[in-house]
Structure formats: structure tokens, C-alpha cells
């Protein structure tokens, strides 16, 4: 699940993820409120189910990314889903806050595009790789650092 409001960024990220053999399908939500709604409803009512990985932008309309992250970590069904934060910020404090709020990893968008692409691919491989099977791919909680 990619939560990203900037369509260009979403397109870029999807283009990169398309190169990964581990990524089966990318769903896009483009605002914080919609993301939160998606988290709060029961999984059986959600046609898409709980994703294997969340890529989360911090700057979102309506509800910001950190709030989404926190409610995700408080949700009984979503709290074990790995969340990789994607943001333009390089502020160490922002990064610390993200980890403190339950982020599994953090990728800065302002990195060199090739680095960024590589990071995304690596993230996909770490969290989704190993098995194409949806359920086997899910790990218990965030990976140890």
C-alpha cells in the first residue's frame, strides 16, 4: 500500500517498484483521511485486505502521515504491517519521531534518485521477498534493526 498524495511521486515510486520481482500489486491512497478509514474498518469489510507493506508519505492532506502511522500501530489488524516512511525531510529529529512512532524504516526522498530507487527495491526485497505467498511473506512485527 502506497500512501502518497503527490501524483508524480506516486508515479515515480510505482515505476521503481514495478522493477521489483517481489512486488505483486501496489495500491495507492492519496490522503491521510482515506488511509485512516481504510485502517479502521474491519478486514472482512475491506475488499483489499491488510497489505504486506505500507509506504507512507509524511506530508498528507487532511490527516498527516505521523497520525496515520500511530493509528496504524494501534489497530489490531494492521499493527504488525511493516511501515516504511517516505519523506522529503532529512531532519534528524523528524527521523527520530518516525521511529518512535513505530516506523519500520525511513527513506528520504531527497537522496540521489539512483540511491532512492535502490533503497526502494531493497525495502521491497527485505519485506516482501523470500516468498511470493502473501501470508508467508508477513513477518512478525518490524524487523530487528
Amino acid at each position, binding site marked *: 500500500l502506497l500512501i502518497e498524495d503527490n501524483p508524480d511521486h506516486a508515479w515515480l515510486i510505482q515505476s521503481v517498484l514495478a522493477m521489483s520481482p517481489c512486488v505483486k500489486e501496489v495500491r495507492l491512497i492519496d490522503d491521510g483521511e482515506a488511509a485512516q478509514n481504510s485502517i479502521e474498518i474491519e478486514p472482512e469489510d475491506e475488499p483489499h485486505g491488510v497489505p504486506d507493506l505500507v509506504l507512507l508519505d509524511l506530508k498528507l492532506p487532511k490527516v498527516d502521515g505521523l497520525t496515520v502511522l500511530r493509528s496504524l500501530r494501534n489497530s489490531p489488524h494492521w499493527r504488525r504491517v511493516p511501515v516504511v516512511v517516505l519523506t522529503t525531510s532529512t531532519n534528524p529529529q523528524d527521523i527520530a519521531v518516525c521511529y518512535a512512532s513505530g516506523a519500520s524504516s525511513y527513506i528520504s526522498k531527497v*537522496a*540521489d534518485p539512483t540511491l532512492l530507487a535502490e533503497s526502494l527495491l531493497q525495502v521491497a526485497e527485505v519485506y516482501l521477498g523470500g516468498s511470493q505467498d502473501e501470508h508467508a511473506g508477513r513477518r512478525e512485527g518490524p524487523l530487528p534493526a
Partner: protein
Amino acid sequence: VRQAAACLRDHPPVEYADSLAAGLAKLEADPEIELVVVEDPTMTRATPAEVERLQARRPAADVFLVAETRAPSGELPGMPKDAMQRGRLPDLTSWLQHHAASPSARRHEQHRQPRAEQLLQTVRLLSSHVATTPKLAEALSFSVDVIQRRMEYEWVAAYLAESEASTITLCAVAGINPTEVPPAAYHLPLGAGTPGQAVLWGVCSRVTDFRDERRVQPALSPHERAELSVPIRDGEQILGALMVASTRGPAGLPENEELALLADVLAAAIRGANVVCREAERFQREILLIGISRALSTCLDIDSALQLAVNEVGNRFKADRCSISRIEADGRLLTTIYEHINPLLIERRRLPKAMKLADPLTLTSVLLQSGEVIISTMNCVHPALRPAWDLLSTRYDIQSVILVPIADPEGRTPYSLMLYQITHPRRWSPEETGLLLSIADQLALTLRNARLFRDVQLAADELRNKNAELESFAYSVSHDLQAPAVSLRGFASLLKSQYGDRLEEQGNLYLARIVANADFLSQMLQDLLELSRVSSSYEPMEQVAVGIVVEKALSDLARPIAERGVVVQLPAAWPVVSYSHMQLYQVFSNLLSNAVKFMGDQPEPRLEIDWRRVGEQIELTVSDNGIGFPPNYHERIFRVFQRLGQVDVEGTGVGLSIVKQVVERHGGRIRVESTPGAGASFSFTVPAWGGEAEEDAVQEGSDEGPEALDQGDRLADRGQPRSRLAHSIRAGDEPLREGSKADR
């Protein structure tokens, strides 16, 4: 003896001397003395020879000797035997009474001087005595005594008026035993009894039959017939009253002029005594003024300082109400800003905070603006206050008021210091008015300072707000601009990787420029964010070993240093400073990368880091032997986006701004020395660590112990400094190296 003599009616003046020698001196000084009573001549003080001499000198005077000794009178030659008396007071009194009616006393009666002569001599006697008596009470009791006896008045009394009170007080009486004075006569309200009337009106007050004169209550002689009081005045000021009372009706009273003359002599006495008092009073007031000035000038809380001043003035001047008021609406509104009310009168009707005075105060405000002090009492209303006086006196019980303008240096007087009296019509002495004017000057200065202070504060607040606004603007702008930059770089990168081979050489060249400029834009935005973060965030101070920070900064630059073959020279030992790890790293990182960047074509590039202690500060220096820059750049290089090279030279021109910002935020200074072609040297100061240094705090810069590594890692964990490695994955993988391929 004196008491016995005083009981005599119509006795001649009695002088007391405690030795014959003193008695002789008195006799010579005062030709009026007719009766000399010498006490105890034989014990120690007098010799018969002296008594003889005394008698020879003044044959006209009766000389009596009063002795309590066992010495027989016959031992004093030349003394009549019955002139000696020993014994107790009642005996002495009757004895004196007998002898005072002796020939010389009768002679005194016969040779009664003409009234004018008598008056003149009394005045002369009084003048010579009272002028030398510093104590007012003594001078007064002596004076009334002399006046009563010399002028042969029945009862004489002196009253004094306190300048700030509504009553007059009895100070001395003669002709009547003080215990017989009716208690009510001790303190008289102004206007009660003849003395009160004389003080109030400032003219003689004569009452000859109290049964007819209902308006004036008798003071001293409630059951008697006549009183005459004259004011004791010092110029315009009325100090008190001198009163003569008679049980014999009008016949026992002197002429007004006669008593007025004597009152003038008393005025001189009081004046003399007052000089001393006034000095003390003036001293007190100087202290008041100094106290107020100090309070006003040192207190930054203007409101409480002015309130304090008003309280102080109100208390010291015993005003019923003291206020600083502002005249508003062209003089139609009087608003009280600070006020002090006599605590004893707090229950009395209070003045409203704002008095609507319709038209009346217009004239007052005009007068105040001209700097005039306005004084009004019930009896003498200042013309400017006349239209408003009815309101003030009937509705607010005000009996006296003084308005002192508080004129600011611009000449405007929106404020005035006002003191009201409700209990009595008060007179204001020139000293008091002068003091109030000085206080008003001080208040004016304070009010002006307060205004200036407020202006400055407002300006500072505005500046602070503007600054914060600007910072948050810079932050959000660089943050928001980052998103399109990311897209730009991302798509350019995709274009290059996926379609690069389909573009011709020229097309690839264009694409390269797009990538270079987009990268540059992104870097600039990042650096700007960094800069705004440095200027808005507070990093906690910690103990920082400089060597470790330098180590880390150098290791981040290891590749360019190695590529360029730069020789790095470090000091043998490192200081420990009080700083933020992260920010000190930022400073070194920027200075060092700057130095490496501007090595030019120097064949033997060298980089040197050194430090020295300057008092409580440590001065750190980073110098190189690179291209340097001309002196006119020494200031400019610290400004944002000031760059020496073109776009393709690495760096955005924000690095040195960050360095300067960090150093100055920590209270340090940064300076640069450089000559073109001879390299540059940046020196900045940081506070030395003041607390206990840890044992390993000072260590070799090249010493790479486990401790150093450990701290280095800790530092890296604090966050990413201005580094190209802008991300990391938590999953424990190696940081990605620059130059790896996206399409791997």
C-alpha cells in the same frame, strides 16, 4: 524658690542664679532685676564679701538670701537679719510675699513706666533671649512668661498651627497654672475660640463677651468675659496665635497693636526654631525625593513604580488622596491612573476613577499645560478651578487640592499629580510645592521612559515575530519546493536510465544539465532547511571531545582527501568543550569540506587543525593552503548563497552561513584570514568545558581507541548531519554507497 516667687501676684521679675557670681552677672546684664534671692550662700557658693559687693553694686535691688543651712544669718555682714530664711516652701512663699511688698516692690509700683516704654523693654528683652534659644518650647514658655509679667496681662497663651493640620495646639501659658487650663483648650479647631479664629482669618480676633458672641467659643476662659488673639505670622504664613484672656472684661485686654507687636517677636522665635526643624524636614523630603527617584529609575515595572511613588507621596504629605491623573477629551474628563487614599479615610466617599467634568476643567488643563501649579482651598479657590469647585467640594467633600503638572520634555502635560485634602483646608508651603514639582519632573521622566521602553519592546516583539515568520517561511518554502525537485530528479533519472540510449549525444548532454541543476536545487533546499533549523532549534549543551568530532568529520571526507592527496595535520592533544555534538560536527564538516574543495591546483595540499585556549574559550582553527580569497570576500563568504565558484563547484554557498550561525548561537565568534593563492584560515571560539572532565576527555587526535569509535557511532546515531548519505535502512544493512546503480 522660683515656684514660690511665681505664686506672687504682681511680684517684680525674679531671676534665678545658682551662685553669687552668676547672680552678679545677671544683675549687670538686666537693669530690670529688682529682687535677687540667693540660695544657700554659705555652703559653697557665696562669700560674705560677694554679698557685700552685690549690695554695693545694686543698692536699689532687694537682695534676699534663702538658706537651708545652719549658718547663722549674723555671719553675713551687711544683711538684714530678716533677709535670711531657711525652711520649707509654704514658709518661703509667705516670707517672700511679705518681703516682696517691701519698699522696693512698692517703689516698683510707684515708678511704673509709661506703657510704651514697658512694651519696648519687653520686646527688647524677648528679642535678646528668644533669638538665642534653639528650642521652641523653651523659647515660647519663657516668652509668654515675660509677656505676662512685664505687660501685666492676666492670662497669656501661645498656640501653634501645624502647617498640615486643621487644629492649633496650646504651647505655653502664663498667669494660669497649666493644670487649670480646660482640656478642650489644648487643641482647638481652626475657627474655634479667638486663637483659632485668628489663625484661620489671619487677623486679630477680639471677643469681649461670649454671651453675645455665639460664633466664637471661648478658649481659655470659658466662664469669663474677654479674649484677644493675634496671629503669629511669618510673612504670608500664619504660624499660630498669641492670646490674652481677662476675667475683668474688656478692660483687662490690651490694644490689638500692642499684642501684635509682641506676636511679631514670638514669630521671630518660632522662625529661629523652625529653621532647625525645617532643615530636618527638608532632609526628610530630600530622602523622599531620592527614594522615589531611585524607585522610578531602577524599577522596570513602571506601573508598580508609579503606584509606589503615589503611595509614598500620599503618605509623606499626609494627603487624603494622592493620584496621578490624566486629563482627557480636551479637559472634559479626568481619569485617575494611580491613586493612594489615606487608609484612615478609606470609608469616606471616594472619588470616581473618571470624573466627567463637562466643561469646567478645560481652563485647568490649559493652565496645567502652561506648567502652572494650581492650588485651591475652600477659602481661596484658584480661578481655573472655580467652575469645578462646587462639584469638587459639595459632591466629593474636597476642601483643598493641589494640582502639579507633569510636563514631559515635549511640553505636553496630559498627566498631573494631584493631592486632595478632605478633612481640612490645607495650605501648601513653597517648600512643599517645590518638592512636588521636583517629584513631578521625576514622574515625567519616568512616564517618558516608560513610553520609550514600551515602544522599544513593541518594536522588538514585532522584529521577533517577523523573524519567526521569516524562519517558518524559509522552512516551509524549502520544504515544499523539495517535492517538485524530487519529481524533477526522479523523472530525469528514469529518463536517463530507460531512454538514455535512445537520445543522441546532444540530448544526453541536455539531460545531464537537467540532472545537475535539479541536484543543485535539491541540495540548496536541503542546506536552507539546515540553516533555518540551526537558527531556530536549541541543542542541549554537552561535554564534547573535539578530537572525536574532527575524526568523524575527516572520515566522512576520507575519499576526497585521499583523491586529492591532502596532508592533514592534527594537534597532539584535543580540548574538551561545552557544545552540541551534532552542531560541532556540522561546523567541522563544513569547514573541512570547504578547505578540501578550494585546494585549487596546489601541488602539496595541506590541511591543518589547531586550537588554543583564550580565557574560558577555546579557539579552534582550520587552515589550508588552497586558493584562498581576496579580503573583500572575508565578510561576504558567510552570507547565504555567496559562492566563489560556478554551479559546478560542489556546494551551495550555505555551508559557511550554517557555520557562522552555529558559532554565534553558541556565543562564539568566527573570523577568517586569507590571501588569494596562500590559503585560508578559519578560527572560531567555543566555550571550554567547565565541569569535571572525564578521564579520557583529552586524548590524542590520532588515537583510535575503542572508546573513540564508540563515541563516533553514538554521534552518527544522533542523526544525519549534512551528508550525502541521506538515508539508512533500519534492517541493519550497510549504508548505500554513492555511485551504485539503480538498475542493478
